[in-house]
C-alpha cells in the first residue's frame, strides 16, 4: 500500500514544463470564451424568463430572485473580458480566478431553471483548477522563458486529468447503480435512442442520423451499451501510459461520435477532446507545426 501511495505521489508530483500548462490555459480558456459567445442567446433568454421558474442551485443560491436583463449582460461582458485576458495570459492572477468564478456563477445560474446542464460542469472544474495554478509562466505577455520543468506546473495538469477521468467513471457508476444489469439488455439503450429521436422530432428538428439504423439492428445494442460503459469505467487507464491513453482516447471519441449520431447528444468539451488535453504533451505542438513541410522551410 505504501509503495502504491509513493508511486501515485511520484506520478502526481512529476515535473512538467511551464509551456504544457500554458497550452492548456490557452485551449481551455479559448474553448470556454468561445462557448459563451456561441451561447450568447442564453443570456438574452434567461434575462427575460418568468421568475417563478427560478430554482437556484450551487452558488446561485445566494440569489432570492433571478438576475435582471442588465445584470445578465454585465455578466456576459465580464465573462468575455476575463476570458480573453486569461486565455491570452494577461494579469492571470486576477483574470484567472475572476474568469473561473464568473464561469462557476454562470453555469450554476444556467442550471437553476430545472435542468442540470452536466456538459458545463467539467470545464468549470478545469477552470477552477487552472485559476489557481501558475499558468502564465510561459506563452504569456511578460513570461520569462525558458522556465525549467517543475512540479508546480505538473500537479495541476495531473489534477485536470484526474478530473476528466473521474467524470467518465462517475457516469459509468451511475449507469450501474441506476440501471444495473438492465443497462446491458437491448431495451434500455434502445428506449434512450428512441426517446432522443422523438424528442428531436417534437421540437421540429431532424432525428439523429443513425437512430433508425441502430434500432433496426437490435442485436448490436447490448454491445454498444457494454462499449459505452467500458469507455466510462476505463477512463483511469488513460492516466497510466501512452498506449493505453491513445487507445482510450480513440474509444472515447468514437463513443461521443456515436452518441451524437444516434441520440443527437454532443458535449463539445469532451467530444472535441478539450477535456483530454491534460493527457498530452502540448508543449510539443509548435514543434510539430514547424515539422510540417513548407512551414519548416519558411521558418528556417
Amino acid at each position, binding site marked *: 500500500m505504501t509503495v502504491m501511495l509513493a508511486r501515485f505521489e511520484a506520478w502526481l508530483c512529476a515535473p512538467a514544463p511551464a509551456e504544457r500548462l500554458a497550452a492548456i490555459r490557452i485551449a481551455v480558456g479559448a474553448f470556454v470564451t468561445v462557448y459563451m459567445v456561441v451561447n450568447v442567446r442564453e443570456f438574452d433568454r434567461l434575462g427575460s424568463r418568468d421568475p417563478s421558474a427560478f430554482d437556484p442551485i450551487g452558488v446561485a443560491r445566494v440569489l432570492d430572485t433571478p438576475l435582471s436583463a442588465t445584470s445578465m449582460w454585465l455578466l456576459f461582458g465580464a465573462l468575455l473580458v476575463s476570458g480573453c485576458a486569461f486565455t491570452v495570459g494577461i494579469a492571470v492572477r486576477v483574470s484567472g480566478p475572476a474568469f473561473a468564478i464568473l464561469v462557476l456563477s454562470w453555469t450554476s445560474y444556467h442550471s437553476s431553471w430545472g435542468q442540470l446542464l452536466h456538459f458545463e460542469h467539467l470545464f468549470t472544474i478545469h477552470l477552477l483548477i487552472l485559476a489557481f495554478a501558475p499558468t502564465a509562466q510561459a506563452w504569456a505577455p511578460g513570461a520569462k522563458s525558458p522556465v525549467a520543468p517543475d512540479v508546480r506546473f505538473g500537479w495541476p495538469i495531473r489534477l485536470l486529468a484526474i478530473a476528466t477521468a473521474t467524470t467518465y467513471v462517475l457516469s459509468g457508476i*451511475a449507469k450501474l447503480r441506476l440501471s444495473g444489469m438492465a443497462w446491458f439488455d437491448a431495451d434500455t439503450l434502445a*428506449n434512450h435512442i428512441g426517446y432522443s*429521436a*422523438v424528442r428531436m422530432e417534437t421540437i*421540429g428538428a431532424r432525428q439523429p442520423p443513425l437512430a433508425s439504423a441502430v434500432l433496426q439492428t437490435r442485436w448490436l445494442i447490448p454491445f454498444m451499451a457494454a462499449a459505452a460503459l467500458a469507455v466510462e469505467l476505463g477512463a483511469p487507464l488513460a492516466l497510466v501510459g501512452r498506449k493505453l491513453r491513445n487507445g482510450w482516447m480513440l474509444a472515447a471519441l468514437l463513443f461521443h461520435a456515436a452518441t451524437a449520431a444516434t441520440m443527437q447528444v454532443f458535449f463539445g468539451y469532451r467530444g472535441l477532446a478539450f477535456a483530454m488535453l491534460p493527457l498530452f504533451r502540448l508543449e510539443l505542438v509548435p514543434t510539430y507545426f514547424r515539422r510540417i513541410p513548407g512551414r519548416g522551410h519558411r521558418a528556417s
Partner: protein
Amino acid sequence: MYATPRSSEVTFIVAVGLGSGGDRIELSSRTIAGTADPLIVESYLRREVEGGRSDSMCEAIAGRAGDGRIVAVEIRSERFNVVDRVLADTPPVGTELLASCVVP
C-alpha cells in the same frame, strides 16, 4: 438522465402550431423556448406545465410564432412508443390538450 432505465412509452410535452386549415405545423426549438438546446427546450416545456403556467407559456410561444402561416398554438401532452415511432412513424398512443391560444 441517460443512466436510468426508460420505458418504451414516454410522455412528451409538445408545442405545436396550427395553420388556418387546422393542419399541424412543427415549431422550431427557438420558437418554443428561445434556444437550440433540446435539453433546455424539454425542461422548459415540462417545468412550465408542472408549474401551472401552460396558458402563459402558450401565449409566449404564440408571440414568437408569427410567421404568417401559424394562426394558433397548442400545448399538448403526447405519449409515444418511442421505438415504434422511430421505426414505423406510429402516431401517439395518447394525447391531451393542455392549453391553446391564438397567434397575435
